């Protein structure tokens, strides 16, 4: 499947997944860092991020089928939502 353009409108601004995560983060995050484990993103912010990304990409995540661990890094989210 052709990859989506990563940038999309988020709260009135054009932002990438990376920028959204970094905006919510309490500290710098690396692409493959587990941001929950490192404490950069807290659980409530993670739920907000998931909800936002689902709405933006029009794709629902079924956590009965996807292990949440796969979505706790910028890299994992990009892969799941199939963006560059």
């Amino acid at each position, binding site marked *: 499947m052709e990859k989506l353009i990563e940038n999309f409108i988020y709260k009135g601004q054009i932002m990438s997944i990376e920028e959204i995560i970094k905006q919510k983060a309490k500290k710098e995050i690396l692409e493959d860092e587990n941001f*929950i484990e490192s404490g950069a993103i*807290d*659980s*409530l*912010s*993670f*739920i*907000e991020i*998931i*909800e936002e990304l689902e709405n933006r990409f029009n794709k*629902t*995540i*079924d*956590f*009965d089928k996807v292990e*949440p*661990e796969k979505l*706790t890094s910028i890299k994992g989210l990009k892969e799941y939502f199939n963006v560059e």
Partner: protein
Amino acid sequence: MWNKVYEKEFIFAPECYKSCNSYCCNNFFGEYFSFLDKEAVILPLIDEEYEVYKKRGGIKNITETKKEITFNDNKKLTLYLLKCKEHGLCSPHNNRPFICRIYPYLPKVDLEGNIEGLLYASLIDNIIEKNYHPCPLTKQNDIKEELLNNLKDIKFTPKTILALKLAELLIIYLQKEIKEFINEKNKALVIKKFEKIFLGNKIFKNEQFKKEANEIYMKMKKRYGEFL
């Protein structure tokens, strides 16, 4: 209503924490959590309570996030979720939210705001500790009477009634989702399921839940007019 709530104590049990290691203010299920905060308890406040809570200065060291529940007419009920890691030592203690003041119970109300019964205040207690609640106050029937008596002069606002009705509905749906996983011997499995439900916002995405939530809201709108 909310100023009155914050000037009142609903349950008087100053030493109860000594026999349960402050169950109400600690996350006793934290050890099983992989994603949700292992230490925190989450305290929901509707916006009108939040305004009063904030005006009084709130509680130190508490972080918060906002959640909006949108109904079919695009009106929203705004909830603030306070993340508390104070383990019972919150300061100032008399600024603690309504949910803490009425713990271990939550009123079950009709559309007029009349109290029909009591649910447990914490979602997890309505599911996992339904049959054996660790809070010592649940073993005392006079506490229920005391709470109901102290709630008598509180006139719930339409938003509060809606929030309480939605909490009741949420508990019903959570119980349905978790039912097959309930197994005292394997709490880790139940908590994992609970976490996944929350991470994926599963109940709020459930079409039947949305339908029933909207029906409650529409009935209230008919009864009270616009209130959101």
